[in-house]
């Protein structure tokens, strides 16, 4: 029985003439292909192919190999007479996937084509990944006479895949490590920011307390007024700082929030029957760097007005308007008091020079004008890169 295929399926070089590999094979019916090659030509081509191929006898005992090409011998390291008559399982070994083998058996049992990739072993015991397709070959009566299998060594592909997986794992590990590093750095930066923010605010409170304590211990007069004025300026800076970072936005502060809080503080020290303060400030986001100069400026203009515009029990109104015009912040502080011309000259004039200094620092412009009545100050400051 083993000898049945020996003659017919020998490789072209050794095959005895007069037999054909394609006997009974429906795929080579000449009538279907007018220009088809003779069956012998197929046998020659398959035998010389670099793709390892085998044919097994479906009707033989234990499905024995009846034909192999040289490429298959090269791939497995076996001699032809070591393979002919044997079942293909001699290529299997310890690491061969039993489930895949079961799948292959089921397909062969059912007479269906199958493609699979299993670990096989060469004659010397070295493993290789064998990717194969197995097709049943039917005779004219429709029964399965042979199985034909073409193989390819997939070891390199497997190795490349495995290397790729390794590379991916390594990349993921590195990305993970760097992300963790960045997260640590960010947490440190956030903690530092909290700490600095806390210190700045606490120090402002200490400075303000220091000023006020000294003012309390200073007899009424110029020195005490000066101390209290300084404490108020620090208060204005403090209000700006309290606004900074309170909403988590480190880069901006809201001008209307600031003026709201600041003017409430200013109003608390005034007689509500005499002096009214009205503010219309749009919620403009101002760069944090501008917070301190702007708050000082608003402080000087408004305190100057309430202090000097309404002498001798005169009542009046102070308005603060803030709006955005394109990239400019336009701030107007106006009162209906006695006006600049009639007010007694301020010997120190510190407030006004402070305002002009700050406007210069912010690269803005300032216009003082006589209102009807009172004083009107209009300040225009660029909102981008002004500080």
């Amino acid at each position, binding site marked *: 029985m083993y000898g049945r295929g020996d003659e017919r399926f020998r490789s072209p070089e050794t095959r005895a003439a007069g037999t054909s590999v394609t006997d009974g094979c429906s795929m080579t019916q000449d009538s279907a292909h007018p220009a088809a090659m003779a069956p012998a030509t197929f046998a020659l081509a398959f035998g010389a192919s670099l793709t390892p191929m085998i044919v097994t006898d479906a009707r033989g005992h234990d499905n024995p190999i009846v034909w192999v090409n040289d490429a298959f011998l090269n791939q497995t390291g076996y001699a032809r007479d070591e393979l002919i008559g044997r079942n293909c399982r001699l290529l299997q070994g310890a690491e061969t996937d039993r489930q895949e083998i079961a799948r292959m058996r089921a397909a062969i049992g059912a007479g269906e084509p199958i493609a699979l990739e299993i670990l096989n072993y060469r004659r010397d015991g070295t493993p290789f990944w064998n990717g194969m397709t197995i097709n049943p070959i039917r005779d004219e009566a429709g029964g399965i006479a042979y199985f034909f299998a073409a193989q390819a060594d997939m070891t390199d592909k497997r190795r490349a895949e495995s290397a790729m997986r390794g590379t991916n794992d390594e990349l993921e590990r590195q990305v993970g490590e760097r992300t963790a590093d960045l997260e640590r750095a960010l947490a440190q930066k956030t903690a530092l920011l*909290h700490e600095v*923010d*806390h*210190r*700045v*605010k*606490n120090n*402002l*409170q*200490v400075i*303000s*307390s*220091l000023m*006020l*304590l000294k*003012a*309390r211990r200073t007899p009424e007069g110029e020195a005490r007024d000066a101390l*209290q004025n300084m404490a*108020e300026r620090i*208060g204005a800076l*403090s*209000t700006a*700082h*309290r606004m900074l970072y*309170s909403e988590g936005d480190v880069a901006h502060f809201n001008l209307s929030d600031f003026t*709201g*809080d600041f003017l*409430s*503080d200013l109003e*608390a*020290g005034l007689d509500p029957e005499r002096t009214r303060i009205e503010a219309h400030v749009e919620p403009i986001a101002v760069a944090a760097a501008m917070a301190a100069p702007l708050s000082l400026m608003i402080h000087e203009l408004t305190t100057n007005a309430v202090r000097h515009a309404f002498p001798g029990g005169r009542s009046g109104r102070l308005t603060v308007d803030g709006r955005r015009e394109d990239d400019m912040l336009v701030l107007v502080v106006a009162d209906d008091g006695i006006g600049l011309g009639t007010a007694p000259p301020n010997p120190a004039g510190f407030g006004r020079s402070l305002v002009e200094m700050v406007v210069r620092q912010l690269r803005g412009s300032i216009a003082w004008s006589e209102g009807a009545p009172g004083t009107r100050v209009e300040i225009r400051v660029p909102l981008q890169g002004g500080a």
Partner: protein
Amino acid sequence: MTADAAPSGPSLRILVVEDEALIALELECLLDDLGHVTVGVACNSSEAIAVGRATAPDVALVDIHLVDGPTGIEVARALAADPRTTVVFMTANAKRIPDDFAGAFGVIAKPYSERVVASTLAYLAGCRAGRPHAPCPDGFHPAPACAAAP
């Protein structure tokens, strides 16, 4: 401005918990101007809790960062356990306050103005006297639980 902060409403007995001596001293002066009584000044947690137990103040103004670390939270929790005491944080470190405010009524953010201290204490006195519907002063941030039902 200090002279204008006239006493308003009932006098409160107040414990000041603050590690910066200058801030504590100035705050004491301000409370005095406002007509309140400072029953004690403490700069660390154990002192604060001891003085709190001994005096049962109406109000405790508590900084979070004290001489022995960020212990103001536990001080607030201990002092607020006494129903006679209303705890208010006064801190530049409001982000450290836990979600439940450690039993405190709210927080005055540093740097504060004297006006906010005055209006907050007036508001507190009103709440303690059973007038909880006065408008909450700006600059004072009530704890979420107290904002709903002071």
